[in-house]
């Protein structure tokens, strides 16, 4: 277990259970992430793949990026799940987003001075950090990369807007179905869902926390969805046997997930 180190700002830099691993030669994941929604030249993709990354592994419940002043780096989730958790600072608390593999989780930290939430790992998660100085240089040379990064934060905003509308329009079982339809769609994009099947480290208790529902309420709704043949959720394995039908039930329209 890595020791904990506090900087002058009080930011915990060493929350990972495993030592960071520096990869000066870069990584393909950043290019894979931006290529989803943006058309980039081979030259830009090559530049993306060559910037140095630091890969770190976080255990369940560990803070990947902390609330407060941002560091000069951002990170891409390449395995696992993370939540944007708004810690108790005397105001509102709760979970505002789910991060899945391929998400550049704290792109917000790039132009913003402070992060208004923690990013917390759910299950063993792997993250690649890139330095903002490297992103600066990349964007100057390839302005389309800047546009592509901007587009990603706008899609994040679309997801937030949809969550707000979903919470005011849908019943509990529809909201759970909507969340699972979104996860299936996002995971399929990175090859991690297939035929309506995916694996998740989120349990029903966490889903309850995300949706602001009681665990009993979620459990009952999941049973309801099972009875109607829309959902089979066994431990970490989720199966949506009839995608068209559950999407219809949840009034899920994937347009908000497109750039």
């Amino acid at each position, binding site marked *: 277990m890595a020791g904990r180190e506090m900087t002058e700002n009080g930011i915990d830099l060493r929350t990972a259970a495993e030592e960071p691993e520096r990869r000066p030669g870069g990584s393909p994941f950043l290019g*894979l992430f931006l290529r989803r929604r943006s058309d980039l030249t081979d030259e830009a993709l090559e530049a993306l793949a060559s910037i140095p990354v630091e890969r770190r592994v976080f255990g369940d419940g560990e803070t990947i990026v902390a609330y407060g002043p941002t560091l000069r780096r951002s990170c891409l989730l*390449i395995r696992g799940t993370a939540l944007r958790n708004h810690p108790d600072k005397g105001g509102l608390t709760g979970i505002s987003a789910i991060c899945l*593999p391929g998400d550049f989780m704290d792109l917000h930290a790039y132009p913003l001075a402070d992060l208004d939430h923690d990013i917390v790992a759910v299950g063993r998660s792997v993250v690649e950090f890139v330095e903002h100085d490297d992103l600066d240089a990349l964007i100057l040379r390839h302005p389309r990369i800047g546009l592509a990064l901007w587009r990603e934060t706008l899609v994040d905003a679309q997801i937030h807007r949809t969550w707000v509308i979903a919470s005011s329009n849908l019943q509990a079982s529809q909201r759970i179905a909507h969340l699972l339809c979104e996860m299936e769609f996002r995971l399929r994009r990175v090859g991690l869902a*297939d035929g309506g099947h995916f*694996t998740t480290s989120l349990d029903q208790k966490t889903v309850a926390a995300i949706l602001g529902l009681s665990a009993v309420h979620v459990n009952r709704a999941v049973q309801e969805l099972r009875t109607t043949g829309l959902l089979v959720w066994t431990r970490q394995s989720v199966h949506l046997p009839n995608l068209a039908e559950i999407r219809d039930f949840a009034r899920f329209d994937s347009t908000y997930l497109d750039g």
Partner: protein
Amino acid sequence: MSRGPFGAALWTERHDGAGNAFPDSASQVSRPSDPPVSADRDILLVEDEAFIAIETEMALQDYQQGPVRVVSNAKAAFAYLEGATPRAALLDFNLGRGETSEALAHALLDRGIPFAFLTGYSEATMTLPDRLLAAPRFSKPCHVEEVVAWLDGK
């Protein structure tokens, strides 16, 4: 299967030449404190999609399986097999750009190295020659427990 827009091109092109397609595979990085690892305990994973590759590798590690040697194409797998005998191999059947792991499966069978195919749920039925039909098939990216149960006997 639906491969998603990520495809494989960027990944394989970048690492083809080295004959070591996934140099950033976490378990390949040995730290000075690590004891020397017998190649016979290694698991070979041939997977061309980067996110599935790292997910599968880490999931196997979660179950104390490994070390896992990850490569993204048949060429790199053959290069690895020249100098090593893994205890088992997991083969993504479709390796992208028309390549499959069929030739690799024949070579593993010839050498008596146990192997299984990883296939997508929506993947069209593979047409395999008779001698490969007995190989187990696991759906990916799920059900790592089944893969682990199979590996435990190897």
